[in-house]
């Protein structure tokens, strides 16, 4: 037996043992799959599942972690195949999904069009999260600026990118961001600088419009801003290797300001990793990029009606407030529909826009371009 075929059969045999044992969908059991991290599954296990099951006696939610996007797509592909064969997909709800995937699913009508489902909370959805009606959100996250209010008064915090650059230069050594490939906080700061250099024009950056010459020219303009900024960063151009390390430096008082994920900074404040005196602010001219997480519901699921009910349920004020307080995320509904107390507390963070920078070929170009252009061009011995 060839090594390759041996590996395949051994892998398949091992995989078989991990398959669910002849699972059939149960009526009143919502089979829920996610591509998100453990903190999201925990949030569903501890908050949403008990509340929804209490509100709907006899209904259970079966929470399954599909691992990552690729894992979730495999389940979605199964649902698509089941649709063609008019069979039971054994799936009712996809968390952290994208209705454009797997290719062909949208055209085949695999996903529920939420605009036609009369969700009681549909009108409350944050307009910034608007996408195709098969994608429906319930939470978001965005990179913002976290800073030490004991060193920088909250009302003096920069509100535009130009202000931010001016502040960093006026306060050398007090700002640090992480390497763009090692965490989204630094990554989206770098992308915001690229957007700034290109007239804050998001339309220039689409998932399918990267090409080596024009793309490179656009990125070079961004590198110019970041190279110019480097001597004013901590240690004249140091970059941490992840979101957490930046937060650690802020908590040690080594720097005054960092870019940070909204959910990560809110939970850091809640856990006491960052002090209560930490201020959070978003730029008003164009926010640092981030995004919403979308859910989809397959049209052929056995518990489609319940799944739609569940989606409506997680847009209720109770769950949306819990997303802010327990998860540290952004609500999927407009901020007017969370409790007034929370609204006032997070007033400075409420984004007027959440730009989304495309992935695909841009990712590679941004990440490697940064390492080659921005990171080394600093003489740190001075």
């Amino acid at each position, binding site marked *: 037996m060839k090594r390759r075929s041996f590996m395949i059969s051994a892998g398949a045999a091992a995989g078989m043992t991990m398959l669910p044992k002849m699972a059939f969908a149960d009526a009143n059991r919502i089979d829920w799959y996610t591509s998100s991290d453990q903190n999201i599954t925990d949030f569903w296990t501890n908050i949403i599942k008990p509340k929804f099951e209490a509100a709907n006696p006899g209904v259970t939610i079966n929470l399954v972690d599909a691992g990552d996007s690729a894992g979730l797509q495999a389940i979605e592909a199964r649902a698509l195949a089941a649709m063609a064969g008019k069979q039971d997909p054994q799936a009712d709800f996809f968390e952290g999904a994208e209705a454009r995937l797997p290719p062909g699913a949208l055209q085949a009508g695999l996903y529920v069009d939420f605009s036609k489902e009369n969700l009681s909370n549909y009108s409350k959805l944050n307009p910034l999260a608007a996408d195709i009606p098969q994608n429906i959100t319930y939470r978001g996250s965005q990179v913002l600026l976290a800073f030490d209010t004991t060193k920088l008064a909250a009302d003096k915090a920069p509100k535009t990118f130009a202000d931010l650059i001016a502040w960093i230069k006026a306060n050398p050594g007090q700002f640090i961001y992480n390497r763009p*490939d090692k965490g989204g906080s630094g990554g989206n700061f770098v992308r915001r600088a690229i957007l700034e250099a290109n007239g804050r024009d998001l339309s220039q950056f689409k998932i399918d419009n990267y090409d080596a010459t024009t793309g490179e020219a656009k990125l070079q303009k961004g590198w110019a801003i970041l190279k110019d900024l480097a001597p004013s960063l901590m240690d004249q151009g*140091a*970059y941490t*290797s992840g979101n957490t390390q930046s937060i*650690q430096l802020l908590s040690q008082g*080594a720097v005054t300001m960092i870019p940070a994920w909204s959910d990560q900074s809110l939970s850091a404040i809640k856990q006491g990793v960052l002090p209560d005196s930490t201020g959070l602010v978003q730029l008003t001219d164009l926010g640092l990029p981030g995004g919403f997480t979308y859910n989809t519901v397959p049209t052929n699921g056995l518990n489609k009606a319940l799944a739609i009910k569940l989606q409506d349920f997680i847009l209720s004020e109770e769950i949306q407030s819990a997303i802010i307080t327990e998860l540290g995320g952004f609500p999927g509904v407009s901020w007017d529909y969370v409790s007034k107390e929370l609204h006032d507390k997070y007033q400075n963070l409420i984004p007027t826009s959440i730009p989304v920078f495309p992935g695909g070929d841009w990712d590679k170009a941004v*990440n*490697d371009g940064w*390492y080659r252009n921005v*990171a080394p061009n600093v003489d740190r011995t001075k």
Partner: protein
Amino acid sequence: MSLAPASDIVGTKKQSGGLIGLLLVAVPVVLVGWMVIYPIISAVVTTFWQPDASGVVSFTLKTYQFFFADDYSLANLYLTLWTTVLCGVILLVVCLPIALYLRFAKGRLTAYVQGLAIFPLFVPSIVLSYAFIRVLGPNGMLDILLNAAHLPKIRSPYLTPWGPLIGLVWDHIPLTVLILLAGLGAVSDASIEAARDVGAGRIRVLWNIILPRLGNSILVAASFAVLGIFSAFTLPYILGPAAPEMMGPFMQRTFRDLYDAPNAITQAVISFVFCIAFGLFYVRSVVKNQRGRS
């Protein structure tokens, strides 16, 4: 099948039981061949046989030409070599006195010193990295202590090439101390006392009696340290500067972020060539030792 006589175990009867011995080593040898040797050969081959622009696979050196013509890649290689050599030297300077102390000192304190020297073995490098940031990082414990003593702040080694260097030295102390200590076991008290009797001072005992018997162990310790440091990932990743990178993080980034397997494998092969030199030192000394025993 007959039971072999017990005397075989101590090897009085040569050349028997060879089959059983071979069977015993067969599993690890096959595993090493399958999981280590074969992937290495296959990796090296894939760097030389690559598809060109039209998709035809042919012999090429393009990824090697790229590596050695690319200042960024070369800077990463130099940083790795600099860190490795410096780490190796510092390790010997730090560990030899500890090993000598542990070999010749008597008393309870020795046990504590030994425990302290072996301690890093039980600390995962990810924990070490974050502890490092808290202690030696900006506004870390050291800064607080210096401040309390009204001394000026130091420039933190965090996010500079010195960060991973300090971390790696600390991480490799236990192994180096243990190997040197094992080597010192071969130095008999009698030979040292004999040298003292004829009037040799401490330095002379070290230089003429101890070091000649320790050469092999130093070589082995250095090889282990070099191999570990060359392939280090976590410490350079968390504590080192963004650029230049050490080869470990550089390879990982090329492979995972840039999806550029040919260049990542080329970087691995180049690292491998440097490591193999030290690997050979080690193998040679092991073989020499075994010949010496038989």
